[in-house]
């Protein structure tokens, strides 16, 4: 039986660290809103255009906003030595990495999801369209964080790896963006919605293993 103590401590550490840094959800949420708000300035303010592309603009902003905090997700643990201690635990490091990523998503991913109806209203997307879509945005955001977490773990030992993380994670965002954008049209029970759920589950299964291998490399 896996000893849950390191998992609990990793979870609590991720939560407290996020608030101690003074940023928490504030920075990614501001970036998310800022990216979405820039769109009317470039695309024009015609209501029918905005309400048509609004849901997809939110997908794009969500993908971009996930890059804001990914750089720090494992780097701080590497610098303060927490990663070295975790690598020595009997608990698999991939489970610890999964816990960290879920905590990270709770802090800086879920608030973005809660913001989507508000931003949707600003982009003149009716709330009855964005409220059901929140589940899709939530699943998509989680998938972004999982694949982004793999990229972040791979570049944990690289100083200023932010752009590299974005480049590495980009190909893995494609399916989620496509399934996600299509799921908004057909709902979660149509094929694209089911595929979105499937790709999230796939990421939940595969990404922790890759993160674990990458973190072992970072601690060497």
């Amino acid at each position, binding site marked *: 039986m896996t000893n849950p103590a390191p998992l609990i401590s990793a979870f609590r550490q991720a939560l407290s660290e996020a608030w101690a840094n003074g940023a928490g959800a504030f920075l990614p949420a501001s970036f998310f809103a800022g990216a979405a708000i820039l769109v009317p300035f470039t695309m024009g303010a015609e209501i029918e255009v905005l309400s048509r592309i609004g849901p997809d603009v939110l997908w794009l902003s969500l993908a971009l906003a996930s890059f804001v905090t990914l750089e720090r997700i494992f780097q701080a643990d590497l610098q303060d030595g927490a990663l070295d201690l975790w690598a020595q635990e009997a608990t698999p490091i991939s489970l610890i990495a999964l816990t960290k990523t879920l905590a990270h998503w709770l802090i800086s991913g879920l608030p973005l999801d809660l913001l989507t109806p508000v931003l949707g209203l600003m982009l003149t997307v009716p709330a009855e369209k964005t409220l059901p879509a929140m589940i899709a945005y939530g699943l998509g955001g989680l998938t972004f964080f999982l694949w982004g977490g793999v990229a972040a773990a*791979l570049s944990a030992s690289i100083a200023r790896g932010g752009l590299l993380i974005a*480049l590495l994670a980009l190909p893995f965002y494609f399916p989620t963006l496509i399934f996600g954008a299509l799921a908004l049209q057909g709902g979660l029970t149509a*094929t694209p919605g089911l595929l979105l759920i499937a790709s999230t589950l796939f990421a939940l299964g595969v990404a922790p293993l890759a993160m674990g291998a990458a973190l072992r490399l970072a601690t060497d």
Partner: protein
Amino acid sequence: MWSILANPHRFMGFSKPAIPALASIGVVLFAYSLWQGLFVVPTDEVQGGHIFRALFIHVPSAWLCMGLYVGLAVASFVWFIWRHELADVAARAIAPVGTAYTALCLATGSVWGKPTWGTWWLWDDPRMMSVLVLFFLFIGYMALRTAMETRQKAARAGAILAMIGLINIPIIRVSVDIWSSIHQGPSVIRAEGPAMDWIYLQPLLIGFLGQGLIIAAIIMILMRAEVFGQQADALMARRLAGK
């Protein structure tokens, strides 16, 4: 059985005569397919007249860039599991060749697409999207390797990335297939030519084989350069140590 190939000395001995042999056979086959493709085979009006002769570069490059990514992932897997140094040397040599071939595939596809489909770039075509994603995977792989401090770390990080890239390719493929089945290009005439005649297929396959042999030779040259570089480093380290 495969570990025979893992011995660098045996590789150096085997590749030295193999490179000129593969390269010369490859050049002859490639030249034959180009001569056939450019001057001998009749034009295909359905595929846009003379521009269809891009086929003899474009289609082999599409097959080869996918094959090269699989090769990269397999070499990464072998290195990750058995730590055969030569597998990493191979992965490192495959990456730039694969990137170049992916770019060649996209470029020749665009040149061919403009007169036949009426556009340089077609977002609805799942094959184009898949190759584009492949291009980013190759670029990311090389960027990650250059960013790592040591060779060993670069090899490990690159191997992890190449392997998760490979298992994601089917999902990416499904997603772009679904996407393009919903978005249909309205104004684009899709040229659906007849099934390929032997007169086209024969130079195409010969050209594919020729380019494959040339690529194998290039990769071996890059691998040899890498092995020589490592030997030079070792010599230098020994000299600096005063032995």
